[in-house]
């Protein structure tokens, strides 16, 4: 246990000094504030509360941003240490590879949580400032926070997996970008194409909803925008949301981090420094 904490502490120091913390926080804060302020104007005309509008636009953005930050924090975790030559020494100490991985995860999770918290905190403050707080429900904000952390964790795990599978940080970063593109862009485009081709057949009704929720980014979107009238997959999304239900979406969002970390651990165990 103390070994895990010591590694987490060290990684946090490194993340702070490498400006990863500053970069992540800046990204999240900037976009949250801009989207909240932009949403405030349109929110007045609709029935939805200003906070809901903000949450909805921040969700759309977080689907891209949170996985990206997760991968940025993690792609270097193993491959970078192999390249620097620090891994062999770490592995000569009496601690298991699982402990090393968990220690790194705790540190990167904390950085991610901090960045998301700052971004959403600013959103909450702005919403109160614009509308007067007491009457407002902050539940959507809390839900967005918790699900962002789950989404980010999944991509932290995927980042460690990539980092352990390829020894060169350059290749790992390239692969991380590919994973990001597939998960948040290409996957949805593919599904959309299949939907169009299928034209409302069995695929649309039976398979598509499950394929959609199997992607953590989409599960995240469904959970935070249940009535998503504005999403790209407009036709399919609400139907899909109904089939899998919040339980299925939540399960997907919670199982992905576990699965990704398990795969990362299995890959890391095979690494020869």
């Amino acid at each position: 246990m103390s070994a895990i904490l010591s590694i987490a502490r060290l990684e946090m120091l490194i993340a702070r000094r490498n400006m990863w913390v500053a970069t992540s926080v800046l990204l999240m804060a900037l976009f949250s504030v801009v989207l909240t302020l932009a949403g405030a104007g349109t929110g007045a005309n609709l029935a939805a509360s200003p906070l809901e509008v903000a949450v909805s636009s921040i969700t759309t953005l977080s689907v891209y941003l949170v996985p990206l930050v997760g991968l940025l924090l993690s792609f270097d975790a193993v491959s970078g240490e192999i390249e620097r030559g620090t891994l062999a020494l770490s592995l000569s100490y009496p601690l298991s590879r699982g402990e090393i991985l968990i220690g790194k995860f705790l540190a990167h999770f904390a950085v991610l949580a901090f960045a998301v918290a700052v971004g959403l905190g600013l959103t909450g403050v702005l919403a109160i400032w614009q509308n007067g707080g007491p009457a407002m429900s902050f539940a959507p904000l809390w839900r967005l926070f918790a699900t962002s952390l789950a989404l980010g964790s999944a991509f932290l795990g995927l980042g460690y997996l990539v980092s352990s599978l390829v020894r060169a940080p350059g290749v790992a970063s390239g692969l991380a970008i590919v994973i990001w593109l597939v998960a948040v862009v290409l996957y949805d485009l593919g599904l959309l194409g299949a939907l169009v081709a299928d034209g409302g057949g069995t695929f649309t009704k039976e398979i598509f909803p499950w394929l959609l929720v199997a992607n953590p980014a989409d599960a995240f979107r469904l959970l935070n925008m249940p009535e998503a009238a504005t999403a790209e997959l407009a036709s399919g999304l609400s139907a899909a949301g109904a089939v899998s239900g919040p339980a299925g979406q939540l399960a997907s969002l919670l199982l992905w981090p576990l699965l990704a970390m398990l795969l990362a651990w299995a890959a890391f165990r095979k690494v020869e420094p």
Partner: protein
Amino acid sequence: MTALKLEHVVKRFGEFVSVQDVSLSIEPGERVALLGHNGAGKTTMMRMILGLTPLSSGRIEVLGSAPGSRQARRHTGFLPENVAFHGALTGREQLRHFARLKSVPARVADDLLERVGLGPAADRRIRTYSKGMRQRIGLAQALLGQPKLALLDEPTSGLDPVSRHDFYEIVHELSAAGTAVLLSSHALTELETSTDRIAILSRGRLVANDDLASLRRAAHLPIRVSVTTTDENVEEVAARLGGQRINGHSVELTCQPDEKVSLLGRITGLGEVIKDVDVIPASLEELYRYYSTSAGEKK
């Protein structure tokens, strides 16, 4: 308990045999120098001892446990070749982290930083350290928790002569406290007085494994004797002893180890004309060359 035992250890990388049938053991408090050319297999051997890479065949026992087991790692100190650290950390942060991993108090880490002469730089980022300073942190971390086995891979590379001297003093203290030390090197001269045993690895084979005196005896390399005479007698002395005149006042001879005493007798027999005599045994370089090339011929 034997600190380290290797039995018929083999390591292959595909067709290539990096370590070939090496058997070696080290007792507590023993200092063994592992010598070998670049690519001889020294680093590979250490990596197998640490459990960082599996053996192709053979057996290794570290302090009675399997290599890489938690038990073995707890009592092993390791200084890797070209040791590296994360540049964003300070020396103190890095060393205290390692201390926590070995369940050693932070105070011990601070003391060790002083011991290896890094006290004043301890709170600077490692990025700003010279190679020698990084090497010292590497050494300090290998000493944490008084290991029972220390594996030091080319520990003196990057160190200046004074630091090398300090380094061997630390190694001496370690072994005096019962630590078995295996250190690899190809800087030979400094090892003569600072190790108990020398193991020579040549193309993956262990071609010698004994103390220096025994290696000298077995190699039968000629001993050089340098005789200083008065200037006017140098020609005569060279002729009578059958040696080579080097300059205006000295003559050099070579002899086999078992002829040494009688030769010295003949020299002193010349009386007044002899000013001084130096006996120079085969150097470690010569020995090393002898063992590594004769092994090559046998193969």
